[in-house]
């Protein structure tokens, strides 16, 4: 199986379908798989459920998929930077599930690690815990959250040095880097790496977007 692709569309070939669940890494506009997002936009895949900390801005990042009405539901911790997001949400066109940032990060980590559910104190006594099971441990209440297992995880990564090996991004701290393990069919053999097809002027560096299946 071809592991390294010259362009994002080629790397995504055969992986996209309407109604799929995608986990996307990054924080704000930092560390986001911008080239893969653009390829998904080009493919026109719709009714997407996407788990990602944020939803980009109106013209960049996941925001571009909102504009084309490809997103049905977002699972995010903060969506304040995106005016189109608010408009679609308030008009009922877009479903939104707020997850506390740490809960979202742990849901992705846990799902990828085969942990179906875990208990956390985060959100107990708030709207986040409504409708969810709770349990007492050592006299304190915790709420049950489930692991996220997506159909596809997309991550921005360092330039690959050779097939199967990719250099870590220098600044992993600014992104939720856990989406890779949360994809349903994770396997080192299926890892596909893209070389950058073009320079994106908005960032000072251009790095390969990694598609990990």
């Amino acid at each position, binding site marked *: 199986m071809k592991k390294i692709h010259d362009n994002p569309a080629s790397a995504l070939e055969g992986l996209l379908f309407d109604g799929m669940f995608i986990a996307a890494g990054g924080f*704000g506009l*930092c560390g986001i798989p911008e080239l893969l997002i653009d390829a998904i936009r080009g493919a026109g895949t719709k009714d997407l459920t996407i788990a990602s900390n944020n939803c980009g801005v109106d013209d960049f990042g996941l925001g571009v998929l909102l504009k084309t009405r490809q997103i049905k539901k977002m699972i995010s911790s903060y969506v304040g930077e995106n005016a189109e997001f608010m408009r679609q949400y308030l008009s009922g066109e877009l479903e939104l599930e707020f997850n506390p940032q*740490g*809960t979202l990060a*742990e849901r992705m980590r846990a799902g990828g690690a085969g942990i179906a559910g875990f208990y956390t104190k985060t959100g107990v006594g708030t709207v986040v815990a409504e409708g969810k099971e709770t349990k007492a441990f050592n006299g304190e209440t915790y709420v049950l959250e489930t692991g996220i297992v997506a159909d596809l995880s997309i991550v921005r990564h360092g330039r690959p040095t050779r097939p199967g090996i990719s250099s870590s991004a220098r600044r*992993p701290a*600014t992104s939720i880097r856990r989406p890779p393990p949360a994809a349903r069919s994770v396997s080192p053999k299926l890892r596909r790496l893209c070389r950058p097809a073009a320079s994106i002027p908005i960032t000072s*560096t251009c790095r390969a977007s990694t598609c990990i299946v």
Partner: protein
Amino acid sequence: MAWDRNQMEARAARELQDGTYVNLGIGPFPTEGEIDADLINAGKQTVTALPHSAFFDSAQSFAMIRGGKIAMAILGAMEVAENGDLANWMIPGKLVKGMGGAMDLVAGVKRVVVVMDHTNKAGESKVLKACTLPLTGQSVVDRIITNLGVLGVVDGGLKLVELAEGVTDSEIRSATEATIVN
């Protein structure tokens, strides 16, 4: 008369103790030539990293926060209640942007210090008997620092810890809806 923003921040800084881990920013803002679009803080501003900075991913970061490794978080608020309930992430119908990491922070860190104005733009108290806005956390706040002074959360209500410069006892009490026990 009362503390300004800088004085409130200086008072909050006195809550820090040598050698502890706290949740704050990560470094000075960059000059034009130093900007790295991939290095941002929690507010999405570009920053620089000090030479001894450590990098780790979000799952690990929140593991530290939830696991009680962080001594203190300093946060703003819309409302704080006399039992320590905190509301600082949502105004239904007006501000629905999301909670980010606030809920994890208040659930996990050992000490929560709120820094905020004592009253809102309408002159109403933000220090209440009970929060009216959706909560960020239940009974999580330990200390409240406002332009009028410092209050601690204790059994049965709030304790007056310190008055701001030029503020009288009766002034802070009349601006506080919550029960002050001392």
